[in-house]
């Protein structure tokens, strides 16, 4: 008898059915998209570059603030891979260090807007009624703001700094996530399992946190990924206008800002390389987001 049972389990294991957890299903789905996987690889590389910028620049490059007095506005060369800037600082080292701030801003903004957006969206969708009307009207107002104008106003009023940038960009990025979460919860809350947990006396917030939120994670993750890209672009755009994190701390945006006047004199690499890093990062995040959208959607995976 016991043997029979274990035999059955073996059959199930061999067929691989038991191994198909959601994560594995998702991973195999994502694996099918070479663009998304390639992008993930590049992003992990950039992430590692940001985390280990100190070690990397120590080993193969220079201190980002070190001035090579004789080497101002040098072209890219074996000593200075991306050339030097107008003060004689090594651009490769500055870009490596710049990735830290640029990527951190992107990730923190996404976190910030997910927290606000998911919370407001969940409350709005779950409780409905006048709370819903109020929150959605408020969301519409935010969606209506032409982003960069408000960003400029907020940042000039508050002085540009790391944390001010994060909350200023974050406060303009949450409405999209709020709408998605609300729409999802509106349909999810009518399901039987919510009725079941209500019937055993679960409270509103418990239902939201334990039952509804996990089921709306997929679209939120996709949207958060795209928010990271939007935030990196916004930070770079503000830096370009001179309203980003202030020099000498390098970010991709402010290196580009500093290089702007030297474009006319033919030093195109000064603006080319930081911009290239912004562009490649944003492109990869968008490809990854697109891949995640397909991989996380159970309708797509079960259909194949």
């Amino acid at each position, binding site marked *: 008898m016991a043997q029979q049972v274990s035999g059955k389990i073996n059959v199930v294991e061999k067929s691989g059915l038991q191994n198909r957890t959601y994560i594995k299903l998702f991973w195999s789905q994502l694996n099918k998209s070479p663009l998304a996987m390639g992008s993930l690889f590049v992003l992990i590389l950039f992430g590692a570059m940001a985390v280990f910028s100190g070690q990397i620049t120590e080993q193969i490059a220079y201190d980002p603030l070190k001035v090579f007095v004789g080497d101002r506005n040098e072209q890219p060369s074996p000593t200075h891979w991306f050339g030097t800037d107008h003060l004689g600082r090594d651009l490769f080292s500055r870009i490596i260090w710049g990735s830290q701030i640029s990527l951190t801003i992107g990730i923190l903004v996404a976190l910030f807007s997910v927290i606000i957006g998911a919370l407001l969206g969940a409350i709005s969708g779950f409780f409905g009624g006048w709370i819903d009307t109020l929150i959605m009207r408020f969301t519409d107002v935010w969606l209506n703001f032409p982003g960069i104008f408000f960003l400029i106003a907020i940042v000039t009023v508050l002085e540009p700094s790391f944390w001010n940038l994060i909350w200023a960009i974050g406060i303009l990025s949450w409405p999209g996530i709020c709408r998605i979460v609300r729409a999802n919860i509106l349909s999810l809350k009518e399901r039987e399992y919510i009725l079941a947990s209500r019937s055993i006396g679960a409270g509103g917030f418990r239902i939201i946190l334990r039952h509804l939120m996990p089921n709306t994670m997929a679209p939120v993750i996709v949207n958060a990924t795209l928010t990271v890209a939007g935030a990196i672009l916004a930070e770079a755009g503000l830096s370009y206008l001179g309203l980003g994190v202030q020099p000498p701390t390098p970010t991709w945006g402010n290196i580009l800002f500093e290089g702007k006047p030297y474009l006319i004199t033919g030093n195109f690499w000064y603006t080319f390389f930081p911009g290239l890093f912004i*562009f490649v990062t944003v492109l990869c995040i968008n490809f990854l987001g697109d891949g995640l959208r397909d991989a996380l959607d159970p309708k797509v995976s079960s259909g194949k």
Partner: protein
Amino acid sequence: MLQYIFRRLMIMIPTLVVTTIVIFGIVQLTPGDPVDRFESPENPLTAEERARIYARYGLDQPLHVQYFRWVSLLFQGDLGTSFNWNAPVFDLVSNRIPKTVELAGLSLILSLLIAIPIGTFSALKQYSFWDNTVTFFSFVGVALPNFWFALLMVALFSVTLGWLPTSLYSTTGIAYAGNEWNWWVDHLKHLIMPLLVLTTAQVAAFSRYMRSQVLEVLRDDYVNTARAKGLKEGHVINKHVLKNALLPVVTLLGLSLPFLLSGALITEQVFAWPGLGRFFWEASGARDYPVVMGLLFMISVVTLFGNFFADLAYAILDPRIKYD
């Protein structure tokens, strides 16, 4: 329909109120005394002068009084008086509006003309080589930071090749009396690069949108019906598919206004284009709050009405949608 319009307009009132509160609130966050700007180390203000400036701008009143004063002036069409230029904000803005409208409007028309055929063709040949190429480049177009793209263009066309001027609206210091044609040629040379930069991102976004719309309509039953009764493919596409796929594009036009203006701001900045965006940036740098508040309000109102007209156009064009 009238009822729908009325209700839609009513909804805009609370939105406008909250918008004004947010704008007013942002400016209130400013650290320091707004009157400090009238002071210099050589000429410190006396308490009397300070009080006079306070009274002049109504800064001696409590916050809610200041707010209501500002809002009531707004609704009378008075956007305030610039600190820096000492002139009404409206007058300062009015000769910059046409320049932004020229850039943004031309870019909108151009991008629709390019994106609609590209998106449609892409959808009709889904997963073909052409479609994949278009999809790839639309990703590139969306991810391309417009300021960087603009700088690369300047490096190529102005610095290296010397074909186009780096910035401004037209060459200054040349008299074109009696020779308007030369002025237009010169102006056009200044317009090409900003227009191209602004249009690239729009084309990328619009063509993706158009593609998904056409794909959705192609799945509808009436397309099958049209094919089944033996209509030529070209007729099916032109009369049945495109007509329905283009409807949501109208909504997109309204929604794309804030993006267009935001994109125009950075593009204007790169090319020193004397439009609204550049003016706004200068005003915030100079902490000219009446201009900042007036422009924020104006742009919010334009966006709001853009959405309103888009919804309205959609309601008129699509008889399937019932509004009551």
